[in-house]
């Protein structure tokens, strides 16, 4: 049992416990810490794959930056470009194959969810071995591989690469 | 002239009795064991709802959890906690018993190859 490995899940559990309890008395902190330790040890084996990475504080910074970028710039841009198309009813739908450079499962899932959550695109399926996402696109702008990746995945990939995969090769 | 408030209250009570009746009808009249189990859960839920309704205070009932208001206001407004306490255990125990019934139905299917009670009756007269 590796105590450092359990730290990440334990912090997640502790935050969930305090938020759900809705109070921060000494009793909450003590019981929350106890529950967090137990849960962290129980779930660390299937939640954490790389201990060194799970304790890297820079990833948190990238995560916050990504959340800020995603919730403001990416969402706004996507809304602005798709609102007229939806309102006018002029769509050109299709399913495209997006090749990504991400390797980890968490990275690919985050990318898939990010793509789904912006208007106009929805991830239909993901193939972790081939590093391919199948995305339903409301307005297919380009057909070639690089163009598709440029339009759909590129803005998120840089951030996710830093969050989940160290970011060196990005 | 009929009071609309009394009408709605009566409707709520009678609709709950009606739901219990539907559940009872399913348990008695439907031949399939799975359907009987589904009906049984509906019947149990509805009887629990009626028990909770017995403790409700209208208007303005609040949950029986003391949160620091003046004692007179709390005792004067909180709903009756006793039916809730009884229903609370009834739900969990009922679920354990219903899961046992599900297991027995599964075993019945393994032994008889069907869950239709009419066919089971024919198989072992």
């Amino acid at each position, binding site marked *: 049992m590796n105590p450092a490995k359990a730290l990440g899940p334990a912090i997640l559990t502790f935050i969930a*416990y305090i938020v*759900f309890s809705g109070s921060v008395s000494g009793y909450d902190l003590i019981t929350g810490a106890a529950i967090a330790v137990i849960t962290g040890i129980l779930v660390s084996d299937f939640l954490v794959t790389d201990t060194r990475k799970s304790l890297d504080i820079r990833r948190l910074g990238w995560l916050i930056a990504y959340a800020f970028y995603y919730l403001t710039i990416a969402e706004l841009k996507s809304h602005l470009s798709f609102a007229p198309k939806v309102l006018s009813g002029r769509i050109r739908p299709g399913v495209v194959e997006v090749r990504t450079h991400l390797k980890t499962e968490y990275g690919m899932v985050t990318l898939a969810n990010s793509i789904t959550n912006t208007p106009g695109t929805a991830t239909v399926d993901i193939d972790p071995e081939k590093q391919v996402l199948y995305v339903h696109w409301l307005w297919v702008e380009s057909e070639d591989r690089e163009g598709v990746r440029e339009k759909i995945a590129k803005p998120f990939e840089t951030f996710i690469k830093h969050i989940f995969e160290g970011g060196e090769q990005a | 002239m*009929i009071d609309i408030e009394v009408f709605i209250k009566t409707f709520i009570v*009678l609709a709950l009795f009606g739901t219990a009746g539907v559940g009872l009808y399913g348990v008695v009249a439907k031949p399939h064991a799975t359907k009987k189990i589904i009906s049984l859960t509906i019947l149990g839920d509805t009887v629990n709802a009626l028990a909770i309704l017995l403790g409700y205070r209208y208007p303005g009932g609040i949950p029986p959890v003391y949160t620091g208001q003046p004692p007179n206001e709390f005792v004067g407004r909180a709903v009756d906690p006793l039916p809730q306490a009884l229903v609370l255990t009834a739900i969990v125990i009922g679920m354990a018993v219903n899961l046992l019934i599900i297991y027995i139905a599964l075993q019945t299917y393994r032994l008889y190859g069907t869950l239709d009670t009419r066919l089971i009756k024919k198989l072992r007269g």
Partner: protein
Amino acid sequence: MSGVRKVASAVALLAIVAALSLGAAAGGMGPFFDGIRSLGAFYLSTAPPQIAELVLGPSYRGLSSYSPEVVTSIVWDYRGLDTYFETAVFFLAIIGAVAIYRGIEEPVLRRPASGLSPIVRAVTKFLIPINIAVAASIALHGHLTPGGGFQAGAALAVAPIIVIVVFSRRYLLERGVTKLKALFFRSAGLIGIALVVLIPVIWSVISGEWAWVMQNQWKPGAEAFSYPAYLGGALISGSIWFLNLFEFLAVSFGFTILFLLISIDEDTVRSCMIRGGEECDRY
């Protein structure tokens, strides 16, 4: 019958109910909506320590369960023996289900793990610790806010179901959640409940003082024994805190056992039932 016709007939039945209510609305409501009974009012005015000390004075401490959550007070203190034996019914129901599956156990390494898509899996991985945290919070705050051992146990019992559906049964077994361990924790919870209930009696036998089964705070005539109402300044409501915790264990692991068993592949069960194969005979 088609779906539209079914909805139509349901609405027609509802209209009959409405017509009946229209007729009955001229009369009274019977016992419904008319407020609280005197026993309920007694529970409301004695269970919270703040009110009990104000209304009854400190000499009536035995009437209070020292918990602002009146429902949990009734479940574990005022009508504690009810709940104690209802837990026995719960125990017997699960034993019955386990007995049906006696001698049947799927060999762990039978087929590769299958499940839903990677997206669902990765999200589920994060939901499991949150589920545990929420359930534990419900259990450990059961004497303060709505909640308690039963609620928390039911909330946590959802976690193994989700894991079985999203990943597979084998995934759960490989992570160490086996029937034997679940049985152990459920038994630990039940023994804990029995101990908390019986400790006043054991103490009474040893010391020669009076005490009652399920005695939470001291009772008139049995003043010597009392579970602590406050621990380090935090209200823990005597035995209620312990009973909530142990019931949480018993209920959650009890249902974990049931779902571990019901998700066994049916072919395995049949082969075990017919041939009584050796690979099935693990217990």
